[in-house]
């Protein structure tokens, strides 16, 4: 049976921002629809309205001409709308099976049969009896999808599903989605990744600042035209010039091991690499393979053996982050609001936090506020942070602006080495472009970067050399020109 989903004049207003401004859209089954937009464009709000998590201020939703009242997620489920969120809605300590049956009133045994049938049909293989926390991100997503399929939905909404997946897992997902679509399920695919839209979808709706900008068929679009619609201006494409080959070694990691007491962390095994001046070393990998531990070891959050890290001819393995900064290292951690900045503190206070000794921010233990504010204003203007209020609490900055502020804070001391971990995670195209340009500029100034990232495109764009981390082990270091994203994908999956 044909399914028709209609969104009619939906508006949702939050204090200070209009998340959805009079949005109307229509979907028909048999096609895969993309909902495209930058972060904050309002696509997540729209799908949360469709799944009953958020109640709109105005507007109506029709499924096959029936006006739906979606006041809770339960209503959406009862009306055959299934949703896989970007952040999984799973219970980590419960088993896969328990996760699957929790929202169903059916009998356990009949559910088990149903689940088995679904898993066989789509070639999913997951142990139902292990706790969810032991699963990989791709498997967790499958659990979410199975949970939707149990209710044989008419509509399946996927919110940024590939942000945690490898290349292989992504293509598996696409195959499944196409299969679902052929079977008559209406698929709405939310993303900000243009490549995926071109690969997967039939029609695309673009949103910008809460408004629907365009609806068109994919065959009439290309990546550039979609990018311009999404950002609202013409984007320049950036490309890295090939670095001058330098043999001047800046940092060397030798036989570094880290064994964690926490069973949910990854041990690092025999890490060896070196980075020359003016070079960018990219470290690829699926998240949870030791990246976070490697970053902590490099930044000094985890202290290692003195001789395991040689920087600028000094052994610094036993130094803490502050002491490493004195040797001109700089760090941009993954979690911007938890590790890099303190959310409740003002912008200028956060700027002061990583500059203790080498600055004149503090006189005899007193804070020299004027000096810090002056310095903060310089960062804000130099690094294009879109605010002029340095008294603003950091938590109110958007991800992109916060990342610019953090990178700016780190770079203004002109360090020799910047270590960053997923610097563009969750950012929109404009901000990503800016960060990428900045990183390329660093290399051009003959300074080095260690870029730990789960985004292969980013790594291929920025790195001179690339290595892959898998289960705490580094692969051999390859020249970036010899590497393709397929090859990285295979290494990330643990094959040789």
């Amino acid at each position: 049976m044909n399914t028709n989903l209609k969104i009619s004049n939906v508006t949702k207003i939050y204090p200070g921002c209009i998340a959805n401004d009079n949005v109307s859209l229509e979907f028909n089954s048999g096609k895969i629809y993309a909902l495209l937009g930058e972060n904050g464009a309002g696509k997540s709000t729209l799908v949360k309205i469709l799944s009953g998590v958020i109640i709109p201020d105005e507007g109506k939703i029709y499924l096959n001409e029936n006006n739906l009242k979606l006041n809770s997620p339960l209503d959406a489920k009862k009306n055959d709308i299934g949703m896989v969120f970007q952040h999984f809605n799973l219970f980590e300590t419960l088993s896969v099976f328990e996760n699957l049956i929790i929202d169903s009133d059916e009998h356990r045994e009949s559910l088990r049969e149903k689940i088995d049938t679904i898993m066989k049909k789509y070639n999913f293989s997951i142990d139902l009896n292990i706790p969810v926390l032991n699963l990989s991100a791709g498997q967790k997503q499958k659990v979410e999808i199975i949970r939707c399929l149990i209710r044989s939905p008419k509509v399946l909404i996927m919110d940024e599903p590939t942000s945690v997946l490898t290349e292989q897992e992504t293509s598996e997902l696409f195959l499944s989605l196409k299969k679902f679509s052929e079977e008559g399920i209406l698929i709405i695919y939310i993303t900000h990744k243009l490549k995926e839209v071109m690969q997967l979808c039939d029609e695309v709706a673009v949103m910008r600042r809460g408004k629907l900008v365009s609806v068109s068929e994919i065959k009439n679009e290309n990546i550039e035209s979609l990018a311009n619609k999404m950002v609202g201006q013409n984007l320049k494409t950036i490309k890295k010039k090939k670095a001058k080959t330098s043999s001047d070694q800046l940092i060397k990691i030798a036989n570094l091991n880290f064994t964690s007491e926490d069973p949910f962390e990854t041990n690092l095994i025999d890490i060896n690499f070196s980075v020359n001046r003016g070079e960018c070393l990219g470290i690829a990998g699926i998240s949870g393979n030791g990246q976070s531990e490697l970053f902590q070891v490099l930044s000094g959050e985890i202290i290692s053996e003195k001789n395991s890290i040689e920087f600028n001819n000094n052994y610094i393995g036993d130094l803490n982050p502050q002491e490493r900064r004195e040797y001109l290292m700089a760090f941009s951690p993954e979690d911007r609001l938890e590790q890099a900045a303190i959310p409740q503190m003002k912008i200028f206070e956060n700027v002061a936090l990583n500059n203790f000794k080498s600055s004149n921010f503090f006189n005899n233990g007193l804070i020299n506020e004027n000096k810090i504010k002056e310095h903060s204003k310089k960062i804000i203007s130099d690094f294009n942070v879109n605010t002029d209020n340095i008294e603003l609490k950091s938590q109110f900055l958007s991800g992109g602006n916060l990342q610019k502020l953090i990178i700016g804070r780190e770079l203004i001391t002109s360090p020799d080495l910047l270590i960053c971990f997923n610097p563009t995670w969750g950012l929109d195209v404009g901000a990503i472009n800016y960060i990428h340009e900045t990183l390329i500029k660093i290399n051009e100034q003959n300074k080095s970067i260690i870029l730990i990232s789960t985004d292969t495109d980013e790594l291929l764009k920025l790195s001179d050399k690339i290595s892959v981390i898998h289960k705490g082990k580094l692969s051999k270091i390859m020249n970036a020109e010899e590497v393709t994203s397929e090859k990285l994908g295979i290494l990330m999956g643990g094959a040789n």
Partner: protein
Amino acid sequence: MIIDINFIGLIIASIMASAVPLILASCGELITERSGVLNLGVEGMMIIGAISGFALMTVTGSLIIAIFGAMLAGVLISTIFAFLTQTLITNHVATGLALTIFGIGISAMIGKNFVGIPGKEFPVFFEGLKDTIPLLGPILFGHSIVFYFAFALPFITSYFLKKTKIGLIVRAVGDSPESASNQGINVRLVRYACILYGGAMSGLAGAYLSMIYTPQWIENMTGGRGWIALALVVFSTWNPIKILIGAMIFGGLTIIQFHMQAIGVRIPVQFLTALPYIVTIIVLVVISRDSRKIRLSTPSSLGKSFHKDN
């Protein structure tokens, strides 16, 4: 000296009796905590249960009214906690501490008129069978209904959490209230229910103390048992069967150290009194060392307020 085998049975039975209030309160608190709510008011709810039970027994003369009244009193006082922490989103720790202080204060006030009044005898079951089996006789027979209920409760709780749908929902809410809410589970309702259940069990534990264990009202008669119950929940890593073990060890050492003091063992009294606390914690820490299992049974959202935003 020949030790009478029935005497050992009696000692074991008295140990079990002293463990009853701990088991009841711990199993109640365990359900509360499994839903992600940390209620530090157990001591307060227990003592409210103790005075309510004793007062109702004295006034109405009915044991049934007294027992259920004590549970209801526990429910009522925990409703205050539930309203504050779930509806007004106050801090769990501060609210729980306030509840305990409130409970101790108000029980002393109500209890003034009941000091020195003798309690009633509570009916026991199978009294006649006590001497039929050596050793096991005094352990198995001649106890109150609350006693039998307490020893069944850890197993019922375990079954409830593992095998029933509602148990699964309680665990899910404690693991991730956000996910639960997105799955259409009414997190607030589940947490309210778990808090009230915990209140009822604490009330029953208090009533056991004032009506069965030592049938009289003494001010502050719970004597820190609520805190021990709380500690048992944590150190048992939210496992009802380990609560039973912990409560037995604690009860056992409390009884034995009394006997040791009476015999005149030359160990400082303070050390003997402290012994049950230390040993219980050590034993529970040792039997709960598997960090993987701890991670799986610890409610991840424990003590964190959940606020659903739209």
